[in-house]
């Protein structure tokens, strides 16, 4: 589904990402791990179109997407979350989910002013989808509260729900467990697995919480200082000497 070949990203003299390759198949959870500053988020930024990679190839469902604008990549079905929660803080929880469905609603101004049947039907559908996902992540009670006033754990879940209402094929989560307590991390664990099992979404995950990564990943890629260090199943990675030295040993 997603194939990244020899991705490089250079900022002036700094080679932040050097020849990294990742691939994600249908219904697979793949993790990227590595010490702080290894270039994980830079890889994400290249994949989602925020940066234009300096080298390499990114194929999503067989189509080259490197250098495409971010919103087009998102519309193809690759949606990401952010390391620091980025919600529309002054808008309500439902509105956050409605904005995300921009692709599914009738954006024609005239149709909206006249409330054509098609416009009404699509608005209703998007509201329905928002309701479903709010229920799914347990935020139905706070649907009309401002997103910025939610507790941190709720904000994290809302961010995932906001990605899911766009009906993505590949979900990219950047440290979704950061700042969550153990119970919330456990919930997140179930949620991510359920996204794969019940909604056929592939997941690309950046995470520092080792129990989460080892528990749910099908495969793991390790990068260190921008370079790929190892890749394989959680078992293989856990036993790789380089990885232990560079990452697990230090932690």
């Amino acid at each position, binding site marked *: 589904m997603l194939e990244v070949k020899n991705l490089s990203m250079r900022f002036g003299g700094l080679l932040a990402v050097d020849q990294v390759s990742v691939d994600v198949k249908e219904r697979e959870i793949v993790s990227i791990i590595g010490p702080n500053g290894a270039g994980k988020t830079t890889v994400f930024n290249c994949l989602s179109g925020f940066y234009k990679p300096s080298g390499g190839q990114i194929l999503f469902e067989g189509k080259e997407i490197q250098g495409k604008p971010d*919103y087009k990549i*998102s519309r193809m079905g690759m949606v990401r979350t952010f390391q620091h929660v*980025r919600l529309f803080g002054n808008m309500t929880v439902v509105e956050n989910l409605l*904005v995300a469905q*921009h692709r599914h609603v009738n954006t024609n101004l005239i149709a909206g002013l006249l409330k054509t049947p098609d416009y009404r039907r699509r608005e209703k559908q998007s509201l329905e989808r928002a309701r479903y996902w709010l229920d799914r992540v347990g935020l139905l009670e706070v649907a009309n509260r401002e997103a910025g006033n939610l507790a941190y754990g709720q904000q994290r879940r809302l961010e995932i729900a906001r990605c899911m209402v766009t009906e993505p094929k590949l979900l990219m989560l950047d440290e979704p467990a950061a700042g969550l307590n153990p119970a919330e991390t456990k919930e997140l664990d179930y949620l991510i697995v359920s996204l794969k099992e019940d909604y056929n979404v592939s997941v690309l995950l950046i995470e520092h919480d080792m129990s989460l990564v080892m528990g749910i990943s099908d495969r793991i890629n390790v990068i260190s200082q921008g370079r790929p260090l190892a890749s394989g199943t959680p078992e293989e990675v856990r036993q790789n000497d380089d990885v232990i030295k560079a990452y697990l040993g230090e932690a």
Partner: protein
Amino acid sequence: MAANNIKHALFCAVITLVISYPILGLNLVADGAVVYLEGATTFTVVSVFLAAVVVFLFQLFRDDIMARLGFISRLNPLSGRDPMPQQKRAKLESWVLTGIIVLALFWPFFVSRGSVDLATLVLIYIMLALGLNVVVGLAGLLDLGYVAFYAVGAYTFALLSQYAGFSFWMALPIGACLAALFGLVLGFPVLRLRGDYLAIVTLGFGEIIRILLNNWTNLTGGPNGIGGIPEPTLFGMEFGRRIKEEGNTSFHETLGIAYASEHKVIFLYLIALVLAVITGLIIRRFMRMPVGRAWEALREDEIAARSLGLSRTAVKLSAFTIGAFFAGFAGTVFASKQGFISPESFVFLESAIVLAIVVLGGMGSQIGVILAAIAVTILPELAREFSDYRMLVFGAAMVLMMVWRPQGLLPMRRIHIELGKQG
């Protein structure tokens, strides 16, 4: 406490003196070509010093005074009440609004010509502020050159009527659309800019339009402006005493009533009212539509909006275009009301006033913006007696407002969206 307070109070008193003495206590007297300074009357000087003493005493005992003042809010019997349920409130609001609009329809027949004229101006500012509210309040794009689109609307009508004999009704959509086109054109270069940079570029754009109008003498008449702009007609009926254009009839003769100069003023007021209501309703719909949500999303977090598939280009351009469209509307009405326009009417101060209306009213809040437009336009008129200190009073009101209600008169409220219990 004491030492600190005394220091602070002294400082405030000195500032009061420094500011008010040169303004009030010294007079410039022109004697032929010579200008010299003269002290003001003893009474003024004494008042200035008294004011300083009052400031000193107030600052010295400020904590005490403010604590005593706390009971005022308890005097309001409504302050402790629970807020009304959402739906009831929405219903009440729409009834009150309908009532106000109906009142506004009949009001001009009972008041003086001057107040109707002023009310027309208020309505023009309401249109401008509602339009700018889209750009600044909803989309979060600080636009300091908004008056440019107003000018485009006004000059389009003026030029079309002068060179091609267009009537108000033909020029209205053309003026608005041309202003919208200018909005689109300005939108392209500023797509990547945010905040301060955007403000500076839009400021420049506003000035470019004004200077262009000022210097393109062949076409626009430069600083002399364009006069003789026709008034709107009602189904071919003119409101003047004599018919200016062939084929038209005159209003008072057709209806068989005596000629009155008020007819014209009231008719213009009604046109402005209808256009302002239309503007308000259309923008209100936009706010509840995908495009409105996209504007707000872009204001809240541009990166997140893009990551969800919103095109920055489309969202920003639509905000600029729609905002400019309504400014063009207002401009056409303005040109028709004045009958004469010149670049003088489209200076930066106008942009600043419209922006002040939006900020005072509460960014994004339509009712707040309408209230602020009324206040900002009428207050200076009421304060005509203090004409020398009008801007001073205006500035003071602004500062006090920002201290006590930085969120604006009536901050924007989120729309409550009812979700079905079971789908």
